[in-house]
């Protein structure tokens, strides 16, 4: 491994220059080494960055690695950058959670769960690029099916969509708790 250690710097430089997440495969291709070695190098890089004398870290989001600042530096950075508050209303967050956990899903199906019209909320989510059309349902009127985007993964710090079922379990556990309470 140590043989490749100088490539850590190259990974750091690549992630810095690109900005968006880069997958392990893509890094492997660019560095002309095996994917396994990329993963090991990134692990080393993460360890190096764990020191409190470093302000950056490598996050795993949207199927790739992304360089970002550590949360403990947020307050300092806030002094520098006028952060545009990107807030989602509770209605938008609820709708997004339904889409995330039940995708692909139609507008009507979302409305059945939430008990209200969701047109404007869905449009907001589409505009923000958090959801997208993923197809048409084989049903009368061939309604649009919605799913989440990689922007969604980035915004919520998720590696892949596969992480969602694990989160769903957490919620189900609560339900079981309630039933036991009876």
């Amino acid at each position, binding site marked *: 491994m140590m043989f490749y250690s100088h490539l850590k710097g190259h990974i750091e430089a690549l992630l*810095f*220059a*690109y*900005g*968006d997440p880069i997958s392990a495969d893509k890094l492997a291709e660019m560095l002309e080494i095996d994917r396994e070695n990329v993963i090991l190098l990134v692990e080393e890089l993460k360890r190096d960055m764990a020191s409190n004398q470093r302000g950056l*870290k490598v*996050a795993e*989001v949207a199927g790739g690695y*992304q*360089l*970002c*600042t*550590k*949360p403990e530096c*947020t307050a300092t*950075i806030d002094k520098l*950058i006028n952060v545009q508050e*990107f807030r*989602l209303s*509770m*209605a938008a*967050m*609820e709708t*997004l*959670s*339904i889409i*995330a*956990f039940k995708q692909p899903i139609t507008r009507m199906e979302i409305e059945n*769960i*939430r*008990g*209200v*019209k969701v047109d404007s909320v869905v449009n907001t989510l589409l505009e923000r690029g958090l959801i997208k*059309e993923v*197809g*048409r349902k084989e049903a009368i009127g061939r309604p649009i099916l919605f799913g989440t985007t990689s922007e969604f993964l*980035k*915004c*919520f*710090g*998720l590696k892949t969509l596969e992480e969602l079922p694990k*989160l*769903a379990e*957490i*919620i*189900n556990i*609560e*339900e079981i708790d*309630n*039933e036991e309470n*009876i």
Partner: protein
Amino acid sequence: MTVYNIKLQSFEGPLALLMHLIEKNQLNIYDIPIAEVTEQYLAYLRAMEQFNIDIASEFLVMAATLLQIKSRMLLPKPPPPDDVETEDPRQELVNRLLEYRRYKQAAVMLEEMFEIRGKTFTRPLHDFGTKVIMPEGLKLDELIAAFAVVWESGVSDFAVVTREEISIQDKMQDIIYLLRKNNGQMEFSQCFIRSGSRMEMVTAFLALLELIKLNRINISQQHSFGPIYLTWEESVE
């Protein structure tokens, strides 16, 4: 049970309001005291009315549902037939509330994740652009050959050209032939690309319409702007 302490906060929908009432009164969601909840729910709607707030139809539908459940609960129950469990009139509502609550909880969890992620800064995606590599080592022969092709066809432009070279019938057969060759399915655009002349395109289009009319082919598209596929309807033959 007082009506007076209902604060007129706005609720996204009837389910949000019901959840609020259940949580506020610490009611058991699996055994909702329906009379009590209905009364509070209606009180809320009345308060909205007093403040001239438009009540969305969903709220009224839910009010009707609650009243219906309430009346069914009041009816004297016939003795349950052996082994058959009578369904609780509240069951469907409870299921809806449970599902709604599940996504409410999911939303809270997502919001936390969103906040944590929001505390990190990233750099904007840098577009490194595209570099086009020009072909090298092209052969002069290819250039001459290409020229010869156009020059020849150009010359023939002045020859007598017969109109209506391709009949619709021919084109229909052509499409069927292509479909068979492609195992019964091909992309819409493929039935045009033979000579590419305008005449051929028009003929091909008319031939297609004819074939669809005869139920010989089926047209399908997976998603908007996606490729259109033609499928051979074998059964009709």
